[in-house]
């Protein structure tokens, strides 16, 4: 049977039309931010430069794409319509009359839908893993930089140990199907996911020690929510069955956190060593504040600028790491629509068909570019103050 095709111009129009919820959301958010940019602090200042607007725009574009993925994509990312195998862009699927806007891949799946759904995987794992890496890096970097001495020596040695591993080797050792049979990933998850709970408990404890009414509420909330998420993620024992993570994904998650937290540790340690010589830290010490209060409530807030910039860059870097994992077929399921896996599948067949390769590569590149632009303009803005 002969496939019908629509023209290149119609493909572009079709893609633009498919993204309609994203355009509406983008216009609303960007318009509102632009109108009230004077009152929005650092975020508002981003809208002063072209680079900043581009960065925010690209990041929000992918964020909304991930949120509205099911509305945007015309097909199921895993569905195979055998007649559409290797179909060129613009081929019309005969049964539903919908168009394979970017063509079909070698398993006859819609490349466009897979790209859109791929954003969901990337935008969940990358920021979450970066968040955990930040928590681990901050919780360990603060005492290392503040106390110095033996704690610093030991922690720095461990961090350098992990940093001396080439990332790819680390992934080949940590993200294999075999390792899922051993308790190693769960033990590592158990350690890493503990850090946010410790961090917030100490945060509230040091601040509200003298005000039990506040303290008990905040500590209770931290322990309940933290424990709930912890049980769901590490033991897969969430009583309400809301929080659930595949063993595969847990493994990837742990490996990515493990690979990127030493970097955060080094940055935090450096910042703390610089900030602890300031007068307000000396003042707090003279007041008799506890070391952890000083670290969390005096030093950390003053280190937030570089940390936010680093966080943005790191989400981009984590996205690249996820792509690397997908490219080597490690961890993620072979039919998963994430961008790295899609690039791997398509790059093997580059000699015969190029259309399945381009959408995921451009998607990945543009998302990381958006984050880097955002980080760059955040850095410029915070330098101005």
């Amino acid at each position, binding site marked *: 049977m002969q496939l019908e095709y629509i023209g290149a111009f119609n493909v572009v129009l079709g893609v633009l039309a498919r993204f309609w919820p994203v355009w509406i959301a983008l216009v609303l958010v960007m318009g509102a931010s632009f109108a009230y940019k004077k009152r929005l602090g650092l975020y508002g200042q981003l809208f002063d430069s072209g680079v900043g607007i581009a960065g925010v725009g690209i990041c929000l574009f992918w964020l909304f794409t991930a949120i509205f993925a099911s509305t945007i994509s015309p097909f199921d990312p895993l569905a195979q319509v055998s007649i559409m195998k290797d179909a060129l862009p613009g081929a019309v699927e005969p049964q539903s009359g919908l168009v394979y806007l970017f063509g079909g891949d070698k398993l006859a799946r819609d490349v466009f839908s897979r790209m859109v759904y791929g954003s969901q995987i990337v935008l969940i794992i990358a920021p979450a893993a970066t968040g955990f890496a930040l928590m681990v890096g901050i919780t360990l970097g603060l005492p290392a930089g503040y106390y110095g001495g033996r704690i610093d020596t030991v922690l720095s040695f461990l961090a350098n*140990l992990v940093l001396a591993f080439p990332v790819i*080797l680390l992934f080949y050792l940590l993200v294999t199907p075999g390792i899922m*049979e051993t308790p190693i990933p769960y033990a590592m998850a158990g350690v890493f996911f503990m850090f946010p709970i410790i961090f917030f408990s100490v945060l509230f404890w040091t601040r509200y020690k003298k005000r039990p009414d506040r303290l008990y509420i905040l500590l209770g909330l931290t322990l309940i929510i933290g424990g709930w998420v912890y049980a769901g993620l590490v033991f897969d024992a969430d009583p309400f069955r809301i929080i659930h993570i595949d063993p595969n994904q847990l493994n990837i998650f742990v490996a990515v956190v493990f690979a990127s937290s030493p970097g955060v540790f080094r940055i935090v340690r450096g910042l703390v060593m610089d900030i602890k010589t300031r007068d307000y830290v000396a003042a707090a010490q003279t007041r008799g504040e506890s070391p952890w209060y000083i670290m969390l409530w005096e030093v950390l807030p003053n280190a937030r600028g570089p940390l936010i910039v680093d966080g943005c860059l790191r989400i981009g870097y984590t996205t690249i790491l996820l792509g690397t994992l997908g490219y*080597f077929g490690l961890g993620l399921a072979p039919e998963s629509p994430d961008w790295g896996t899609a*690039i791997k599948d398509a*790059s093997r067949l580059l000699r015969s068909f*190029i259309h399945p390769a*381009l959408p995921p590569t451009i998607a990945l590149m543009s998302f990381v*570019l958006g984050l*880097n632009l955002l980080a760059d303009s955040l850095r410029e803005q915070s330098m101005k103050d």
Partner: protein
Amino acid sequence: MFAFVFRRLGTMLLTMLCLTMVVFFLINLEPNLKKLAISQTEMHTSAEQLESWLVNHGYRQNFFSRYGQWLGIVPKQPVTDPATGKPTRRFSFCNDPVEPTFSGVLQGDFGCSTKFKTTVASKLFPALGATGILMFWVLVVMVPISLLIGILAGMREGSRTDRTLSVASIASTATPEYVSGVIFTVIFASWLGLLNGSAASASRGITFYNFTLPVMTLAIYGIGYIARMTRASMVEVMTQQYIRTARLKGLSFGSVVVKHALRNALIAPFTVIMLQFPWLLTGVVIVEVMFRYQGFGYTLVEAAGNNDIDLLLGCSLVSVFIVLITQLISDVGYAFLNPRIRVQ
């Protein structure tokens, strides 16, 4: 200075010891050993046969004694052939000792590759040589281009050249190798047909036709990063007092940049270029797999994919060594180049 280098070398050795032990532990996990036994024996072998294969090839000895044997501080024991009761080689394809001898990494024996059926050394070192050639061309392309971009951008901060080049370098840092590799292959191999999308023939002879794409792909990710660091360093130098003095005494802008600014602005990029090697290592793996170039990265992936224990250990030893030695060179070189820093 010498004390500093010695202390660093000591830390380096300790780090290598810890890391190889971790790698040794992770490779020798039970599921991995089982996978190795299955791939090395015939199909459909029973559990007992797998187990006896592992015992016969010495994989069931104590963890620390095996690590010591690999390292060369514990004598390597030959295995006894159950049929004859005589000591035999573990693997027939490489020269394992038949008598207990110290034969480990310290003695220069890297072990046997089960995948390639040869000694690790005869597989690993030619691969390293091939990667060395690739790295050489990458550095030849990457370093001058990125320094030039960084200097041009940092010369006049905020100018249009600066903005354009900065955005371009940000874009290049946002392009990992597997993305740029695909895009370059599409443009130069599929559309224009100018270059070869595979570097498999490069191991027989390097030509512009088969080697340009891997080099380009590997260089582009680093160019952006080094260029941005050079720019930052150049911007800082250009605000210094001595630059203003040189301008005020009537020197032309060009000669101020070349004679006064460059020398000081190039100290920081030196460190960055050195620290770029670990990143290049990951890039090498991706590029060699993508373009089918038989180098170190390709060997690493083959070793990891087939659970080739000794080969993978050799690969990790080499990569960890490269990472640590470049860190050391960057520290020592920085102190050497920058007279304001004195190492205690």
